[in-house]
């Protein structure tokens, strides 16, 4: 190391700086898009799960079981019977909501209205 002054030493250090530092900098530059993509996926996954809780309660399970029980052809234990019962329960739920919407749309009569 004889003959090296401080300036030469600094130049050598700049030339042969540790490889890890350079790698780390490059890696950060390549990772952040993946981090964003991962964040989007996580948000979507949470969104899906959050939605499932609402949708699962739409079909009245109790009514579907009652329909299944009422099938008189021994089809009640089959997959066909289950699909059928779920469908009937679904349509009944749709009809109930339609009736509620109709009721809500009715304008209440005033005290002098509706008299014959």
């Amino acid at each position, binding site marked *: 190391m004889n003959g090296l002054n401080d300036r030469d030493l600094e130049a050598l250090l700049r030339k042969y700086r540790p490889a890890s530092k350079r790698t780390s900098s490059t890696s950060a530059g390549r990772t952040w898009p993946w981090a964003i993509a991962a964040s989007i996926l996580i948000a979507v996954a949470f969104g899906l799960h959050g*939605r499932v809780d609402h949708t699962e309660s739409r079909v009245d399970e109790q009514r579907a079981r009652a329909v299944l029980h009422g099938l*008189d052809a021994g089809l009640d234990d089959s997959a066909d*019977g289950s699909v059928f019962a779920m469908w009937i329960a679904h349509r009944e739920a749709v009809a109930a909501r339609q009736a509620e919407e109709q009721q809500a749309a009715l304008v209440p009569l005033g005290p002098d209205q509706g008299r014959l």
Partner: protein
Amino acid sequence: MTPRKALIVAVIVLFPLALHAVWDQWEASSFANEIMRIADRQELTDLSVLRRPLASAEQRRSASLYAAAAQLSSNLMAAEGGSQLYRIDFAVPDSSSSAAVAAATDVLARAEPAMSLLDLATPLDFAGFSTIAAELNENQFPLDTLNLQACLKADILSARGAGDDAVRYFVQAARLQRTMLIAFYRNQATVRLYGSVRILLNQGRPSPPSLLALQHTVEEWPDIDDVAAQLIRTRARLIDDVWHHPASGTGWAYRIQPWRGTDQGITFFLLRPLFTDLLRREVQSFDRAIAIAKLPLPDRFDAVRDFRRAEAAAPPAVRAMFTRTFGFPPAGLASGILANENPFGVRHLAFRRTIITALAIERYRADHDGNPPDALSTLVPAYLSAVPHDPFTTGPLTFRKTGDSYVVYSVDLNRVDDGGELYGAGSGKNAYPVRRDDLAPADIGIRVHLSSTR
């Protein structure tokens, strides 16, 4: 942000969005084309036909009366004590004890307002509920409860030997069937009515004019099985749930809508192309089911069995997963509906024909000192226009006489003559509920004990 970084963002975010938009458009167009194909065949694609305005004041009046009666009846069933009415069978001593009958009579006393409305609606012309009670186009359970109450009223009178009074309620219940477009509810109602006919003929002692009035009323039921029509209507309901566009176009803006009960949100938006694809496949699978439903009897039974086996062997895994998670679209709906609608439809023919034949036999007996005919052909033409065919075979209904009874029956789903092995309400063997295997020994029929009548 450098251009390179901006490009990365664009690729990661915008490219999938663009791909999603193209996929969504492609699936929506395919679905619209599918609906257009159905409409081109002049088959139902939406339920607007059920909401068509009624033509006459009498039709509007009957719709209102039936709807009000059904609402009252449904309210009563929901109240305490209503559900016990389902368990009473006057042919089974355990289920028709004096305490049970007294309790039922008490409940039925509160059903009088509904019965009065039903009585008013019965003779009127009926052409659907339209928008007067649109919910009854889909949920016909309240009509079934009305039927139950009318049948129980008839049973109580029959058990007292007042068959002529009971027939009035029979006519109400039999005419009520015209309001039941959905075979599931109609089947439930018919099974109950059938039990009451058995009780009437064994306990009620109705006069020949009453028998004739009831026979004419049951003869008004269409003598066609409507399995294919039921499937077409079910498919229209499926489409109507999600497609609120004309069937005649493939507009660029047309998309499926979230089915009722779900919100328009990110989940639906992201999965919409997949839902559209699943729905289109489900709608397409109805084509095969409808084609099978149009096959003549009895060949249809084998085709239904093969279709069910094929569906069971290749379960639609993705569809099933979505059904479990989102409750919709229902996987295997066409197969499930066909498997249930076919027995409903064909059994309804058997119910109709055996009731008419038994009533004709009773009228014959009234004219022949209580003796039944030697064969059904004896009833033609004075009591029957022709000997009815068994819808499960190619032959006529079976008629057997023993020393103290006779039985007229159809061989039921197993298509084997089990010697008059009857089941269900009024058979005396098992009260509600009735659950049997398709291939179990069973016949659909009416047995009348000669000693207990005439």
